């Protein structure tokens, strides 16, 4: 299955790209697996994205422009868009 990752703000700066398209053998796949894959591709961002087995405080994730999620058990399916944002949406 394919998942599109969209990066905004600091995550975009750290990864150096505005989006990635990632493929996974299993559908659904957990958000943890997706982020682990991202962390391997973009080490500078990866260091900040996960704190051990948890999403770091500085990372905000939205699924398909709808719901914000924090649980790394969130199931991601083929065609999903994962938006990764800077901490602190406002200002």
């Amino acid at each position, binding site marked *: 299955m394919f998942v599109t990752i969209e990066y905004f703000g600091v995550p975009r700066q750290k990864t150096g790209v505005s989006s990635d398209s990632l493929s996974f053998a299993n559908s659904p796949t957990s958000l943890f697996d997706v982020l682990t894959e991202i962390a391997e591709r973009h080490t500078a961002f990866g260091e900040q994205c996960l704190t051990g087995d948890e999403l770091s*405080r500085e990372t905000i994730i939205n699924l398909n422009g709808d719901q914000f999620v924090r649980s790394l058990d969130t199931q991601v399916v083929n065609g999903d868009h994962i938006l990764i944002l800077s901490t602190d949406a406002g200002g």
Partner: protein
Amino acid sequence: MSIFGYHGVYTTVDATTGTSSQSSITESTFRRFPGGSALGTHLLLKHNAWQHDPLSAESSLVFAFSPLIGSPLTTSAKFAVVSRSPLTGRLNDSLASSSFALAGKKSGNDAILITGKAESPCILVIDDQQTRKLPADHLWGLSAEDAEASLREQFSGDHHFAVIGSAGEQQVAYATISHSGRHAGRGGSGAVLGAKNVKAIVVAGNQRTQWADTDGLVKRAKQLSKLSFGPATEKYRELGTAANLLVFNRLHCLPTRNFQRGSFANSDQFSPEALGAARDKTRSSCAACTIGCTHLYSINSGTSNRNVRIEYENIYALGPLCDVQDPEAVLQASQLCDELGIDTISTGGTIAFAMECVERGLLDEPWLRFGDGAALLKAIHLIGTGAGLGKLLRLGSRAMANIIGHNSIAFAPQVKGLEIPGYEPRALQTMALGFAVGTRGADHNRSGAYEIDFSDTADRRNGTASAARLAVDTEDKAAIMDSLILCKFLRGVFIDYFAETAELLNLITGWGLDQSAMQNMARGIIDAKKEFNIRCGWTPVEDTLPQRMLNSALQDDPEARLDTQTLQTMITAYNLERGWTADGYLDEMLSK
């Protein structure tokens, strides 16, 4: 006996006579209203400021300092300007940071209250000598920046200045007060000063306050400064708040074309990366700040060689909201607002409203079209001169709608008269609640409820009563931040917010406060603000949103729909959570 962190006094300066008097403030008052917005509100209540037209001689305007000013705590060089607003008729508290805050506190005051009205343009000087009124005819008509430069030549390097531009002199309802390129921006405090014929407040002094635990304070300040270099503030340091634009656009919560849409065709051109690629960029900080979120960009056209400070809110209001897709026009518009001394959000909101009135045939100004950058600049010039349409535009969108009629109030982008910042309420419904109940009107600095919408604790497009408690919590945190005072961009470094802010205040004052004492303090501050508004004539019907947002879904996101009943349910839950009556009255007035 002196109080740690405080001088224990405020000075009242009468602009009519130039005379001043000092009054004491007790420790028990500081424990409830520690500084900034809280202290300013308390003093306005004490002086019955709700009784007076904000542009009358009798009105009061308070510059309120704080216990943290002058300490080594990062981002603490801040002050609040508090008055009744000429734009809303309700409480207005605007905050800003600069050396003015440091010098104002060193003048030996915890607050300075200005009242009266000078016969001719003047400046008011509060320093180690006797408080005095000096003529300012030579400054009248100058931009705030030019007036400040002139004052710098007139006074010693220790003096600092809060200055109005020509818009404040002419009492534009959303005129700002400026100092060192920063602005106490919202709600028209510049007009209040202008109505008093006061061009500038000048402060200086050498009076310091003591701290209860200096060693502990220095140690904690070092830790906070270190954290301020970390990931919690990285967005502000690296990109500035302009980084919000692409995110908001993607989520359809970027108000566009006067809230007709939630996304904007040319948003990519406004990202910090695109703005920086096309022009020179510099970065700066407020006084005593280790974060440095201020990103300035050069303007490629025009005559000015000054870089312009760009924030999400000024791009939003002067770009997408007016559907202006040319970044150069938006940067120029932003710079022009700074030169005149007007709030960019209210400027953009009022012009976008006028553009829609033209589109609907309610205003006969065919040149003023959505998307036209030259028209945007012309409209801002007219606000500056007051000529033609400028006479209406300088009143703000609510007052304009009341004059234009034809139920145009339904799409005037304001709450309580204050134009709405760049958060689409239908797509961010906890924020919709925050806007509706805000004491100074629609405001993203007094309610951080958007943080709830940007989290997994709420469904951002389906507001519920249970979000009210979370909205109250963000408002309480902001009330503490605005009263200690610390910059909101530091908030991400705190893990246990109320406990940690209690610790900071304890290091300064020795009061031994805990988390629940801070929460109670926050509740008391919000109650006092509400009391001020009730005394001004607030009624529950003011706590709402423009009809447009309650009647129809967002054009480009049909799921973003908010109805009156849902909003009312959230408002009732909010009022009860605050311990008020269901319709938002205080059970008893505090100041009695």
